[in-house]
């Protein structure tokens, strides 16, 4: 909610005290000069180097660095995934176990947590925990998902990612050098081909740690997929998807019929009326109270033509928006002009009122179809979620049949059934962001030059885009520069695109259906559905993926 104050206008005299063109120029110069070449950056580097040298010289014994405790990640739409704050007490020589709201199990062995000087700590501590388990949460995290594998640019398909930080009296805590905290992450992804990575806040990149031991093989997943394919819910999901696609097509057709607003006569431009017998020229009836204003680009018009009596008149819609071509002819000559139908005075007011009524009616119809589409989308999301849950549960039961021997795994198995989650084991030696991932090649088989419009065909400037894979938890960030080189995709794969439109506080979403219709075209106009940031937060991942 906005704070609103009643105040009188600030005096111009006081305002002008803040006028400073030199300041604008200096800020402009800073924008122009890359930061790494700016005097501020160079002096910061010099000071930092000096401070680092000083730290090494003064206190070589300091065991744990404070500066690299965590990196700050920015949600691209300013809506972060909030941390779960867990308060717990650490007792000397005793292990501690915590289960988060999402079912993740954190095991802290005895005598594991230390302060920045390396002293073991006991007593009350605060754990800050959050996880990022699907495409929406990865997107909102703002954590980079790109990975450089020996110079090859790749992107992570994530099996589950979390951030865990620990504090005592607001001071950061660390994991002692010879210890590890075990985190059994309650994940939504079922595959088994993942590795474990740690995001280094110092180097701003992912570090490979070890291979993930959990998850299911491709064969196990394929077996369950085949069983679920014939489930009635799969048929319902398909039916809802078809219904949603039909509604999208209907909406596109409706938007093409958007009532055109009347244009007011510009008295500085040439214009003329057509006086004709409407019985001879029935097509002109529609333009009865209209004037024709000569278009700016027209080179043929001369006022003398308006004085003349012509035998015949033809009028047809030109390709340019709002523009028509009017041709007059008689036995000796034919002239054509590019014109725009306009209204003057009272006629304009009437036309405007008529247009507003039509437009309101049109929007009411559009809104009702949009509302229905939202309902279908919601149902579809629920069906898709239930199918995903059924798949996980079926796989968990498959695993049960393998009769795992270890006690911990048995316990996790029970918990998995309760929580309907796949557990992934991490042994972490640092607080920060950990990820169970598989680097994948970026889509590269085809590129199309994208143009983005909203439902009303209004061109939209896209600031940043995220190519979201529907069948795996992989979100590829694309800058404006990347998009300028063409939107990459692999035909046959399922995508949606989430674009940032900061000046509308919205995320523009391109549906998977539009990707399927690209047909290797060199350029494509994508029709985006705009979802406000707050609505984006409220919609479930499945709803967002099925737009």
């Amino acid at each position, binding site marked *: 909610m906005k704070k609103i104050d009643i*105040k009188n206008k600030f005096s111009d005299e006081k305002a002008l005290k803040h006028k400073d063109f030199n300041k604008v120029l200096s800020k402009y110069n800073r924008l122009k000069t890359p930061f790494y070449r700016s005097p501020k950056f160079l002096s910061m580097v010099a000071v930092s180097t000096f401070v680092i040298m000083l730290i090494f010289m003064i206190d070589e014994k300091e065991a744990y660095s404070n500066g690299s405790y965590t990196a700050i990640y920015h949600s691209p739409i300013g809506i972060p995934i909030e941390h779960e704050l867990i308060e717990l007490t650490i007792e000397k020589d005793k292990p501690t176990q915590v289960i988060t709201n999402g079912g993740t199990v954190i095991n802290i062995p005895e005598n594991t947590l230390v302060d920045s000087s390396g002293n073991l700590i006991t007593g009350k501590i605060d754990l800050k925990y959050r996880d990022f388990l699907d495409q929406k949460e990865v997107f909102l995290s703002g954590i980079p998902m790109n990975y450089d594998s020996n110079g090859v640019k790749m992107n992570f398909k994530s099996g589950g990612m979390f951030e865990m930080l620990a504090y005592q009296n607001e001071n950061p805590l660390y994991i002692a050098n010879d210890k590890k905290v075990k985190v059994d992450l309650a994940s939504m992804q079922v595959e088994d081909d993942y590795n474990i990575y740690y995001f280094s806040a110092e180097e701003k990149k992912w570090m490979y740690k070890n291979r993930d031991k959990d998850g299911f093989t491709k064969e196990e997943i394929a077996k369950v997929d085949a069983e679920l394919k014939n489930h009635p819910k799969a048929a319902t999901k398909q039916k809802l998807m078809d219904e949603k696609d039909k509604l999208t097509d209907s909406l596109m057709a409706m938007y093409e019929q958007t009532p055109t607003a009347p244009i007011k006569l510009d008295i500085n431009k040439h214009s003329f009326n057509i006086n004709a017998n409407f019985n001879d020229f029935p097509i002109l009836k529609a333009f009865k109270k209209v004037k024709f204003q000569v278009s700016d680009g027209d080179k043929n018009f001369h006022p003398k033509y308006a004085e003349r009596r012509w035998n015949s008149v033809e009028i047809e819609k030109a390709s340019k928006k709002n523009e028509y071509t009017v041709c007059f002819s008689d036995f000796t000559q034919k002239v054509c002009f590019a014109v725009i139908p306009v209204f003057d005075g009272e006629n304009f007011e009437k036309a405007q009122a008529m247009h507003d009524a039509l437009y309101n009616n049109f929007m009411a119809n559009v809104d009702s179809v949009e509302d229905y589409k939202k309902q279908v989308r919601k149902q579809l999301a629920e069906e898709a979620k239930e199918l995903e849950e059924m798949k996980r549960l079926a796989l968990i039961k498959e695993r049960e049949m393998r009769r795992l021997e270890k006690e911990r795994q048995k316990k996790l198995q029970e918990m998995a059934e309760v929580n309907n989650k796949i557990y992934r084991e991490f042994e972490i030696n640092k607080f920060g962001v950990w990820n169970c991932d598989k680097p994948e090649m970026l889509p590269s088989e085809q590129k199309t030059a994208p143009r983005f419009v909203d439902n009303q065909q209004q061109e939209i400037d896209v600031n940043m885009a995220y190519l979201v894979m529907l069948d795996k938890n992989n979100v590829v960030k694309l800058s404006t520069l990347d998009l300028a080189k063409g939107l990459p995709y692999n035909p046959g794969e399922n995508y949606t695109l989430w674009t940032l439109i*900061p000046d509308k506080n919205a995320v523009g979403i391109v549906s998977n259906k539009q990707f399927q219709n690209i047909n290797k075209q060199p350029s494509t106009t994508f029709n985006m559905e705009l979802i406000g940031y707050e609505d984006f937060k409220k919609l479930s991942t499945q709803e967002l993926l099925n737009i």
Partner: protein
Amino acid sequence: MIKESIYHKTTSIINLEYEQIKKTQQNVADFAPLYDSYFLAIFNYVLKRVQDEHHAAEITSDIFAKALFKISTYNFKGLPFSSWLYRIARNQLIDFYRKDKSNKYLQVSEEELNYLVDNSENDIEAVVDKENKTQQLVLALGKLSDDNIELIELKFFENRSYKEIAEIINTNENNARVKTNRALTKLKDLIK
């Protein structure tokens, strides 16, 4: 009654401005006349939306610096330069609010509220209680979504044309008109 809008420009002034923009594209010092023309308008626009005048001054200089930085990409559409400038200002304020949501703020005068009541087509006057008019309006405005309140600000507190509002919020004129009417209806419902 609010005086004639300062945002409306004649075609000749718009064309003169464009000549100045073309000069600025060659030499940044030529931006000074544009800065002189628009400083007060932009500063007041920002000051209405942030509580502190020093913050407003910083944001205003950021806006002009950004405008200067982007002026080489300026695309003349026959609209006043101010529309483009306000779009930058709007984005700069969105950035400012994003850092801290508690920054969201709007300053209005009683004169502006009276103008809103007198000029809204959906007859807000019929639903307000004359004695508590200001309080009622402030309370209802505070409950509107950011998008809706912005439309009311632009149309009634700043007296802009729908064409200009469309340019600032990056939509078409029809949509700006219809959305503003809907915002007014919501405001009326909140007052009832």
